[in-house]
């Protein structure tokens, strides 16, 4: 059980509901594999140290920083990315609210924010302020400021709890 150092690893996982088989290097991050090996570039990298949340996606329903998760660790897991959110032409309510509230300016933090917000509202459809911050505090927006983003998420929450 001591094969070559750079032996590749086979990983079975579901990406946006689709069973996927990947062969990855042990040290490749999930972010890198999604973006550069299979072209799901909706998930963004920005700090590559878990500080900004741009790379947030859902692993088994919970938000994680895909820049810090090794792809090989995700074996057997369920991955949801921004690409899996809309149904055909129909935007997810968070996506729609982000547009309506002007919450996506440069748009770079948007996919990560939307995924973090989805995790938050999946668990707590109508969060109080502390829960809201706990759910969103790992995502940084440099450009839009947080006001319209909070409005978008709150707007989505209103529809969510209906």
């Amino acid at each position, binding site marked *: *059980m*001591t*094969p*070559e*150092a750079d*032996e590749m*690893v086979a990983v079975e996982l579901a990406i946006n509901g689709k069973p996927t088989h990947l062969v990855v290097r*042990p*040290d490749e*991050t999930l972010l890198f594999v999604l973006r550069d090996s299979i072209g799901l570039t909706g998930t963004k990298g920005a700090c*590559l*140290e*878990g*500080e900004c*949340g741009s790379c*947030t996606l859902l*692993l088994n329903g*919970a*938000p*994680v*920083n895909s*820049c*810090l*998760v*090794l792809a*090989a*660790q995700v*074996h*057997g897991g369920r991955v949801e990315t921004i690409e899996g959110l809309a149904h055909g032409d129909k935007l997810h309510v968070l996506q729609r609210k982000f547009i309506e509230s002007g919450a996506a300016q440069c748009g770079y933090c948007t996919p990560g924010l939307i995924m*973090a917000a989805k*995790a*938050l509202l999946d668990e707590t459809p109508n969060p109080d302020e502390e829960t809201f*911050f*706990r*759910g*969103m*505090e*790992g*995502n940084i927006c440099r450009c839009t400021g947080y006001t319209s983003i909070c409005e978008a998420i709150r707007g989505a929450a209103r529809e969510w709890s209906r």
Partner: protein
Amino acid sequence: MFSQPTTLEEALDVRARCGPDLLPIAGGTDIVVAMNRGQLRPAGFLDLTHVRGLDAVRHENGRYECGGAATHATLSRLPVEALAEAALSVGGPAIRNRGTIGGNLVTASPAGDGCVALLALDADVELAHASRGRRVVPLREYFLGYRKTALLADELITRVRFPKDWITAWYKIGKRGSVNISVVCCAIGRSPTGLFHIALGSVAATPIRAPHAEEIVNRDGLTDGAIAEAADAVRRDISPIDDHRASAKYRAAMSVTLVARLLRRIRDRVKEPAR
């Protein structure tokens, strides 16, 4: 090479055989940061995230027993204030879902918030080896020096034990509202017998206990005078440095401030009339 055991036995076995060649990885929130910065290129990994039960928290005989891979998210839900708040102060939710207490204890950063909270709870840590078995080390003896610990290269952290019903308090000074590396943090635990355990982070080479300060409140209780004296005595327990995060002077002053603040907070909780 990548090993992904599902049982603890298997994990300990791989660890014993491959030792430092396979870097144990749990949440990766320390390791992968270092990899992404180009500071670390491990030859292979021993993935602990699939080991059944290693992330669980159990509760027996008035103590919690949490697995080495229990996440900050899990700890943040425990009714042990200092630990829960420390865990909640780590990163954002995505970090807390991945980062583990075992990783925090192994990284042993002077700013390790989990380490500080557990020191204030006088926790024990269980270090296990496939054939030598398990040894339990009191956390106050576990930190040996700057990022050096009692863990050997062929062992894993399997469990951390700490009391359930102590009165505890926590405060971390950071430079913003969340996702802070502590500039100074402090945790205090009071055992049911009235003994105080004062721990601080980012004021020495390791997370530390503050024996001088403890001695005063253990002796005199929580009078205004004793609190002030204990807070002042903490200066003898710490050895802060100047770095790009803060000055030694500020860290020293904040150690004093936080010890006093948290002792007062505990006094309010205990509702013990000031003597």
